[in-house]
Each structure stands twice: as structure tokens, then as C-alpha cells.
């Protein structure tokens, strides 16, 4: 393992610990790691943006498709927001973005979000009692939950409030299910971070790299001290005064 990789592993370990520390208390090391993260992430993405401008915008011009100078110009216009007087100019490129986004959103959402969902609700399997039961439960659930979203048609009486109540319950079940399932995903990530510390860096469970282990303890102490710096300073002052 070369020196750069080792150094990298130590930096990564420190970054991981500093980030975790934020769950306990905000501290200077978390903000340092995060500031570097902000800078690198924006730098990173700007590099790819420039790459993409070059590939999609500049390359065609160099090959003679001069029409591509229009998006380059429009792209530059977005900087007009810095001018007080001409900030409206940036509406032109933004208009193109908004229009395209809206069009893309509308054009295919009918198929995926409406037609598919409706036709799957209709097709109730009648092969046995259990699947029929599920099918009807699904049907009632879908209809009631749609009813929950109605804005202006305010029915009166028990039926209407019953429907919205059922709809609410169904939606809450969906939310709770997603909440429960998210636990799996987030813990996968959490375990991954722990693995990178415990296995990749310290070497557990097969062996213990004592250098890294000592480093880990030192880092924890340092970050802990930063977290509780105020309390520690107070303590020190207190003992001096007495």
C-alpha cells in the first residue's frame, strides 16, 4: 500500500468520524470536513458540466454546426441576474429550461402514473378467494385514497367523511411501510460506513491494526474534545478558580 493510499485512508477515517460526531453535537471538525466537501463537490460537478458543454455545445460548432452557438449564448445570458437592470434577460434561458422540464413531465406521466396504475387496479385476479380479497381491498384502498385528495367538491355527511378517513388510513399505511423499509436502506449505509472504519482501516474481525486503532482513539478524543469544548473549558476554569 503506497503512502498516498494510506494517507487517504486516514483522511477518510477522520472525515467519517467527524461526520458521525455531528449526530452528537455540532463541532468545528464537522464544519471543516463539510466545507471541504462543499468545495470539492461543486468543483467536481463544474468540471463535468464544462466537459458536457464542450462535448454537446462546442464540439459541434468546431465541426461547422453553427446553430449550437445559440445555446452557448443563452447559457451566458443566465449570468444576467447579476445586473440590476437587465436581470430579466436571464428569463430567456430559464424559460427554455422550465418549458422543456414541464413538457417532459407532462408527456409521459400519463402512462406511468395513471394508465398503469388504473389498469392494474382494475385487473382483479379471480383465481382464488385470497387474491380476490386482496384485489378488492386494493380497489377500495385506491378509490378512498384518491378521495382524500379532493379539494373543492366537499360532500357532506357520513359517506364522504368515511371515505376520506379510510383514504387517510391507507396513505398512512403507505408512509409507515416506506418508513419501515427505509430503515433497511439507511442501516445498509450505516453498516457500510462502520465496515470501512472497522474492516478496511482497522482490519477487524480478522486482525487488529494497532496503529490505526490508536489513531482512531486519538481522533475520537480530539473530536470529542471539540464537541464538548465549552464544558471542558468551564471545568478547567472552575478548578483554577477554586
Amino acid at each position, binding site marked *: 500500500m503506497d503512502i498516498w493510499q494510506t494517507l487517504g485512508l486516514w483522511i477518510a477515517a477522520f472525515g467519517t468520524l467527524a461526520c458521525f460526531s*455531528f449526530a452528537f453535537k*455540532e463541532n468545528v471538525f*464537522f*464544519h471543516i*470536513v*463539510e*466545507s471541504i*466537501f*462543499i468545495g*470539492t*463537490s*461543486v468543483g*467536481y*460537478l463544474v468540471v463535468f458540466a464544462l466537459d458536457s458543454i464542450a462535448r454537446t455545445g462546442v464540439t459541434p460548432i468546431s465541426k461547422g454546426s453553427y446553430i449550437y452557438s445559440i445555446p452557448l449564448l443563452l447559457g451566458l445570458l*443566465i449570468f*444576467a*441576474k447579476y445586473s440590476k437592470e437587465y*436581470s*430579466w434577460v*436571464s*428569463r430567456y434561458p*430559464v424559460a427554455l*429550461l*422550465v418549458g*422543456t*422540464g*414541464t413538457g*417532459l*413531465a*407532462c*408527456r*409521459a406521466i*400519463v*402512462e406511468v402514473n*395513471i*394508465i398503469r396504475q*388504473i*389498469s392494474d*387496479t*382494475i*385487473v*382483479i385476479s*379471480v383465481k382464488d378467494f385470497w387474491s380476490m380479497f386482496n384485489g378488492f381491498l386494493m*380497489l377500495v384502498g*385506491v*378509490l378512498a385514497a*384518491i*378521495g382524500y*385528495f*379532493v*379539494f*373543492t*367538491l*366537499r360532500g357532506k355527511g357520513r359517506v364522504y367523511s368515511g371515505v376520506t378517513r379510510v383514504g387517510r388510513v391507507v*396513505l398512512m399505511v*403507505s*408512509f409507515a411501510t*416506506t*418508513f419501515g423499509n*427505509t430503515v433497511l436502506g439507511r442501516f445498509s449505509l450505516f453498516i457500510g460506513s462502520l465496515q470501512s472504519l472497522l474492516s478496511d482501516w482497522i482490519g477487524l474481525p480478522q486482525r487488529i491494526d494497532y496503529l490505526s486503532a490508536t489513531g482512531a482513539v486519538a481522533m475520537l478524543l480530539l473530536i470529542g474534545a471539540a464537541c464538548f469544548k465549552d464544558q471542558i473549558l468551564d471545568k478547567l476554569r472552575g478548578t483554577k478558580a477554586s
Partner: protein
Amino acid sequence: MFAAGRIAQFALLILFFVFTGLGIWLGRKGKKFEVRKLAALDALEEGVGRAAEMGRPVHFNPGWYSLDSVEAPQTVAALSVFDRLAHLCARYNVPVIVTLIRPDVIPVVDGLLRNAATAEGRPEIYKAENIRFLSPEQFAYFGGVAEIFAREKPATSVLMGGYMAYSLLVAELGYRYGAFQVAGTASWHQIPFFVAACDYSLIGEELFAAGAYLSKDATLLGGLFGQDVCKLTCVAYVVVATVLWLLGSDLFVKLLKI
């Protein structure tokens, strides 16, 4: 002439456009519609008032999606909420800090903030540095927001638009600093966390209705009526089609696939 298998889609799209359009037309004609309460939106004023009392700023984030993405409507809806929020903040003389993940939203937010300040007669309250683009990487963005919360301790945090995993991080951050939180998203994967961690939340379609609800503009409220007609159409279609299906005819299912 049609792309294969997309006739039903096109018909539905046009039908729903027509329904919404009819609603808008009715609204413009002066027909009044009574709209169900959306507590989260009514809470905006409470949130801004709270910030004014405490002398602290309001925080706003219009979500994850850029304006050219498929989820752009969520961002646009969030910006319509921001329009109202900016007016309220200018009226109560409360600074509003907008943190951004997507840079293409900067000019839009800038324009809304400027106009709100002018419209409420306080052009001096507009400050360009209150619009803070942090990073398109959600966790780097979170780091920036964490620093802003630590330093400026917003009294109210409004999170609207499409969201990703960082939703819970930012919502818990607000909880830690005791901020009053109003959220809203149509991103199904993040809705549970807003419901769990925020004081008020808009669920799904409610986000898209926010602009109309807040503006109280009769024309836009008519649009909401149109949306309801669309929903009832879906319900009616499902009911009729299911009855036919159980009687042995798959006509209505096939109809959707032409």
C-alpha cells in the same frame, strides 16, 4: 400518425387539460369554489410571524430538482409557495435565507425576492447574499445548511418541492434548533419523513395546489376544481371497468392500451 400505443395516453392528457382548462375558465367567469383547508399553507403566516417575534430569519429550500428535470413541476410549485413566503417576509420585515441545491433556480428566486420586496414597499430588504447556492451534492448541501442553522438559527424552516434522502437530515436539523417547520413534497420516498418530523406537511398533489390556494386567485382555484373532475373521472373509470372486468369483459383495460 400516432406513435404506437400512445393514443389512449394522448386522449387522457388532452381530456385532463380540457377539464383543468374548463375549471380555470369557470373561475375566470366568476364562479366561486370552496377549497378544503390546507393547514400547512395557512401555517406559513404563523411561521413568519414567529420569526418576526423572535427576530430571527426564515429558511427556505425549493427542493432537489432542477427546472429542466422531469420533476420540474414540483420545483415550480415550490417557487409559487416561495412567492407568497417572500411577500410575507417582506411585510413582516423578516429576512428569508434561501439555500439552493440547483443553480438554475437562482435567477428565479432572485426575481421573486426582488419583486416581493418592491411590492411590499421595502426594496431595502432584498439582499442577494440571502440566496445561497451551496452544492448540488445533497450531503455537501446539508453541511452548508447545518452551518447556516448553527450561525443564524432560523425560527422557521420551509421545505417545499421534490426531495431526496437529505429531507430527514434537514428536518431533524430544524428540530434540533427548535425551528417551526412547514414541509411539502410530492416525492413519495420522502413524504413519510416530513410527516414524522415537521409541524405541518403538504402531501403529494397538495403541493401542486399550493400556488392556487395561496394566491386565492379565482382563476387558479377553478383549476383545482378541474383537477377534482379529473380524479372523479379516474374513479368512475375504475369502477365501471372493474364491474365489466368481473363480468368477463376486458374492453376498458384494452382501451387504455391503444
